[in-house]
């Protein structure tokens, strides 16, 4: 047993060196720490960047964007440990996964568990090659946090499904090729009347309209389905099994939302510039400094928590802390972005143009965008309900 563990450790170390060398040779240094090209940025902007094109081609060619998927699905067939090593080595050089998307993080893992082989072969390779981008058709105007109240109707027409209704808060729907949607196949039941359907966004009868948010960002959309025809083979799992599949998918989503963010650049140097320093070289505002320190310490403890829980989960421990992690993360990051703007003072209030620097405008928009963290992916309140009932066993 011990010998096996040790030889695995040696193999992992070899793989780490191999991964490090390959990434050094292929990751364009110009992309280091460029958050704008991450998955929620504009597709057009990313596609137009030649460095990004090169990087994406290298990674999709290697299968390392989805390292744990089998090669017939476009992955590299690596172990979980090796996939983690790639992530760590990427983080170490300020890199990112160029195909990180709803497809890789949420639909892919879900299809691997619930899809039939035809569906896997039909979709996974295109997610892995980043040729087919996905959006998530879950929330509706009357069914956000109370998702099971959704009403988008899906009728069995014999040779196809007919879908009618409206989705909202659909990230990237205007740029997505496909949508994985929850639809109602039985109106007599709530949770038990929902099915999980894959819908081609090019289908007739679909309209996606971007919603402008307080941050100016437009990646959320309203999506209208007007008598959209969907092939029968696009149903994942059984009819009315959609809630079970969705719950699994939402676990993948929460996991991805609470992933360790490598970037904990200390805010102190910026504060020294914006606020000044006292005779001892400290941030020259005791109140702001105290709040920044408290937030930074919580951030450090949070990262330690993610590492601890990941390690426990790997060793078969309980992993029901995802709702807790999501709420801790959103709270800490929201407060951090508020502190950054506060530190910038009036320069943190600009929307566009001079005299605001790029970094200042980015901080302002990021602060406004951060308000979404405690709402999307299940609101703060919904996550606390889950923790209270499922983790703490408090009565319904």
């Amino acid at each position: 047993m011990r010998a096996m563990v040790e030889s695995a450790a040696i193999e992992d170390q070899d793989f780490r060196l191999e991964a490090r060398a390959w990434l050094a040779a292929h990751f364009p240094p110009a992309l280091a720490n460029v958050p704008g090209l991450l998955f929620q940025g504009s597709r057009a902007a990313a596609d137009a960047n030649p460095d990004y094109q090169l990087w994406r081609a290298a990674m999709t060619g290697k299968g390392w964007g989805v390292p744990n998927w089998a090669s017939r699905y476009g992955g590299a067939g690596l172990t979980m440990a090796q996939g983690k090593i790639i992530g760590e080595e990427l983080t170490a050089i300020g890199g990112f996964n160029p195909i990180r998307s709803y497809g890789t993080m949420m639909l892919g893992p879900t299809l691997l568990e619930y899809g039939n082989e035809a569906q896997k072969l039909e979709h996974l390779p295109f997610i892995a090659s980043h040729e087919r981008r996905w959006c998530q058709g879950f929330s509706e105007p009357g069914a956000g946090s109370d998702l099971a109240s959704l009403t988008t109707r899906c009728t069995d027409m014999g040779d196809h499904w007919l879908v009618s209704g409206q989705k909202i808060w659909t990230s990237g729907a205007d740029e997505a090729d496909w949508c994985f949607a929850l639809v109602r196949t039985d109106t007599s039941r709530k949770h038990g009347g929902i099915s999980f359907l894959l819908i081609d966004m090019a289908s007739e009868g679909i309209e996606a309209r971007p919603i402008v948010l307080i941050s100016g960002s437009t990646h959320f959309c309203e999506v209208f389905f007007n008598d959209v025809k969907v092939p029968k083979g696009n149903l994942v799992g059984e009819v009315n099994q959609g809630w079970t599949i969705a719950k699994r998918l939402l676990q993948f989503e929460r996991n991805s939302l609470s992933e360790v963010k490598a970037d904990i650049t200390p805010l102190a140097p910026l504060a020294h510039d914006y606020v000044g320093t006292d005779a001892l070289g400290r941030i020259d505002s005791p109140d702001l400094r105290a709040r920044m320190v408290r937030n930074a310490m919580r951030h450090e403890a949070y990262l330690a928590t993610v590492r601890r829980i990941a390690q426990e989960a790997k060793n078969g421990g309980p992993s029901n802390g995802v709702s807790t992690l999501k709420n801790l993360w959103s709270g800490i990051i929201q407060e951090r972005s508020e502190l950054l703007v506060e530190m910038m003072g009036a320069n943190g209030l600009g929307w566009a143009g001079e005299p605001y620097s790029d970094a200042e405008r980015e901080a302002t928009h990021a602060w406004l965008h951060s308000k979404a963290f405690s709402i999307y992916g299940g609101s703060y309140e919904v996550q606390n309900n889950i923790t209270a009932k499922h983790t703490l066993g408090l009565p319904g």
Partner: protein
Amino acid sequence: MAVLNEEQQMLKDMAADWARERMPVTALRALYDHGGGGRAEALGYDPDAWAEMAQMGWTGIVAPLEHGGSDFGCMGLGLVLEQLGRTLAASPLLSSALIAVSALRLGGNAAQQARWLPGLADGSVIGTLAVEEGPHHAPERTALVATPAGDGWTLNGIKRPVQDGMIAHLAIVVARVEGGGGDRDGLRLFLVPTDAPGLTREPLDQIDARRPATFTLTNVAVGADALLGGADLLDQLLDRAAIGMAAEMLGIADQAFDTTLDYLKTRVQFGAIIGSFQALQHRAADLFGELQLARSAVEAALVAIDNDDPALPRLASLAKAIVGETVHVISQQMVQLHGGIGMTHEHDAGLYLKRACVAAQCYGSTAWHRERWARLNRY
């Protein structure tokens, strides 16, 4: 919970069982007088229980093998301290088995180790650190002075509060050989037997029924072999003290939360179990989140000691400050959520509140450690 090896898991389970059966909260109650102060004749610990701890090897967990210890590591001792924290078990384990043993391990020469470690490891000698001189943790402002005298030194000054001071046989006394308040270069540590002529001690009646002491040192003479090290050694000891105390505080917070959660699941008001009210569910969920941060910070710090991690000072302050805030919030909420009964001496909530408050002050308060973390991180 960190991923423990088999021996660590066994130690933890054993400590949990022992604390529950041998030192439940009722054992702490026996140290209180009827009205809530410490009993005058009590010493803030139970000698028989201490002997059992020694017999189980806990006093020697971080002591080297050649001096009768098991060299099992600070993570192991941290697990025990956490379990003792759960039942508010009063003992000098932190002062003696972690701090005093570490002092000799890290700063003692061969003769000093041979003289003191076997007794500390087998529990026959109780050691402690005498560092504080005022109401706030401020080691660099130490005023107790050590003057060269012949081959040795003469110590003069006051230490207060000294944890476990009334029962310690050996005190590691922080003194100043040069410089004024705030000058850390002039600090030295001395090994001082508590029966040394010129050392008198008075008990302090503290809210948690422990009996820390005031030490008055008047021309206490020690030999050259009493000198242990300077400010760097003191920092290393204080890091370990803070982390050990944080481990105990984690146990306090964990049990305070569990007890409160049980109450939320059973107490009926307005015809409903109060734990079904969303306001209280969300408070419990938030507290649970705070506990996660606290556990991670404490475990990371314990691992850092055993790995000789250069980030240890930062992680020590992180642990003490994060768990300090957590145990403060949870012990307050323990009283609040129990309502009127939580305000009574009869109920355990007040005992958790009191011990949590004392522990948070020991070896640097939450504010002190935030400030230190800020300094280390250039905020």
